[in-house]
């Protein structure tokens, strides 16, 4: 049995479910908004997780789960409980169901997309950048500082500098311009990340187990995800990575403990790849819908153990 966790109408989850349907693979959906219909009973004995999961009228032994895919959102934001006080019984019940699944997730003897602990590396860009660099990728030269003078010196040295969030929140890349000078004083309350602007073609690489899907992005925007807001467009097309680079991408994902990852690269004219970050929960459907690359199929096959390694 395969477990899909999240909101079923969310596109990536929907696509993986559709692929599992097409493959004839049975699956259960941990529908976050229907937490009241879910019950988990788990125990751990000699390092193994045993127990059962009940979703509505369906019951599955935890040891029968072969693959698990999570697109879960923070349950505290679910419409059913968002307006409730922390102590409200319904909210506490919602928390307990989610907490229980989260606690056993990484311990399940199943193909996990992804394990939760390694996903957290993306919560700090500088933390993750050091790990990326250890895997042989260039990363943008970076300054994190709360000192406007240090930022000015960095910009003077490198001329073109961007800033973006250090966490995974509001991570929109923006170029530092003369008109931002007056706002620089604001960084004193919170150290901020500045990076040398890296030239090159943006390439998003999805790795699924040992499979690689590369998508090239032709755009004039600094951050192609927000191309229309930046007065530009983004054209996506399937792209063939050099074999050595593809292998390095798989090794990077594995090194970060991820079975499914979205790696953001810039490729320069000399073939050098600079890695900006590794997304541990990629919204692959955006790339799939523009290119026809069957990323959702690969995820479904991985979960079902039908990939090459399985």
């Amino acid at each position, binding site marked *: 049995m395969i477990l899909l966790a999240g909101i079923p109408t969310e596109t990536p989850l929907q696509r993986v479910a559709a692929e599992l349907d097409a493959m004839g693979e049975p699956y259960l959906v941990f529908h976050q908004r229907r937490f009241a219909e*879910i*019950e*988990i*009973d*788990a*125990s*751990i*004995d*000699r*390092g193994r*997780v045993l127990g059962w999961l009940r979703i509505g009228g369906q019951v599955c032994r935890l040891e029968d789960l072969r693959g698990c895919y999570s697109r879960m959102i923070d349950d505290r934001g679910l419409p059913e409980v968002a307006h409730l006080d922390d102590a409200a019984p319904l909210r*506490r*019940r919602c928390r*307990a*169901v989610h*907490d*229980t*699944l989260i*606690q*056993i997730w*990484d*311990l399940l003897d199943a193909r996990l997309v992804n394990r939760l*602990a*390694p996903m*957290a*590396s993306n*919560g*700090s860009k*500088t*933390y993750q*950048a*050091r*790990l990326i*660099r*250890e895997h*042989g*990728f*260039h*990363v*943008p*030269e*970076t*300054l*994190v*500082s*709360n*000192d406007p003078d*240090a930022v000015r010196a960095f910009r003077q040295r490198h001329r073109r500098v961007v800033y973006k*969030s*250090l*966490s*995974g*929140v*509001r991570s929109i890349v923006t170029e530092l311009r003369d008109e931002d000078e007056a706002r620089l004083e604001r960084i004193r*309350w*919170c*150290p*901020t990340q500045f990076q*040398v602007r890296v030239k090159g073609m943006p390439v998003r690489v999805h790795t699924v187990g040992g499979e690689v899907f590369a998508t090239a992005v032709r755009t004039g925007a600094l951050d192609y995800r927000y191309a229309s807001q930046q007065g530009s467009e983004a054209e996506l097309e399937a792209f063939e990575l050099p074999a050595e680079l593809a292998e390095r991408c798989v090794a990077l994902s594995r090194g970060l403990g991820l079975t499914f990852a979205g790696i953001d690269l810039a490729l320069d004219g000399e073939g050098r790849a*600079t890695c900006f970050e590794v997304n541990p929960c990629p919204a692959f459907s955006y790339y799939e819908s523009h290119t026809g690359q069957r990323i959702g199929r690969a995820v479904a096959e991985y979960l079902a153990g039908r990939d090459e390694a399985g």
Partner: protein
Amino acid sequence: MGSPSSWLVICEGHDADAIWAGSALRRRGHRVELVSSESLASARRFEQHLDGDPDGGADAFRVVLDDGRELDLEQVQGVLNRAWTFPQGHLVGVAPADLDYARQELHAFYLGWLAGLPGPVLNPATPRGFAGAWRSAFDWAVLASRAGLGTAPLAVHSSLGPPAQGMPPAWTPPGAQRLQVVGERLLGPPLPEDVAESVRRLARLSCTPLLELTLLPPGVPPWHSTEWSHGWTFVDARPHVELRWAGEAMIDALAEALADGDGPGQRAGTPEESP
């Protein structure tokens, strides 16, 4: 700072254990810089330079504290990291809509900065804890089992929710023994060598070179089982270690581990392991 062989102790201002350890190391002639997380949070100047080249130069750090002290991290050769939290009082003026974002930015900053600290770091920062990963009882039980320790059964049901992570148990079973790990050294009751090696392996598996744990000796039944154990049984573990408990033996062990550039604390920045 500025002299070679400096050790850095980072802790919350009220962490009497860390302050005691820093002072004891100083009394033994070691150069120790004690920095509170409060003074880091209000540092006048923070600069963290990350080099872009995987084969290139080193990263650089510069920190000027609010009292004017400058930390030269290039001279730091070992860190006792007890920075569990950083104060966020200066966020009081942040608009409610931006507060969560600001908190996450600060969390990301401190994690990235702590993970770049040089030398053996006890304990290395991880995304699940600035001074070592907080793990669930389930997580610890699986790791302990993999390390070769006997474990008592644990259970959880979604109507109750899981127990709080990493905290000392509200009730310690009678006969339970406390044990501390510092690098390769064990502090506490003598253990059979195979059990001692399993405990060291647990510290390595969990990337927690400074670790405190509770074991039940043979013949003492686990607290929620009628089965009598024939060997030592793992009860729980936590990265927060009561440093004063073992007295001068802890200072001996810290001095040895902080001086060991190849030791297990030399793991800052490695992705944390999980069962």
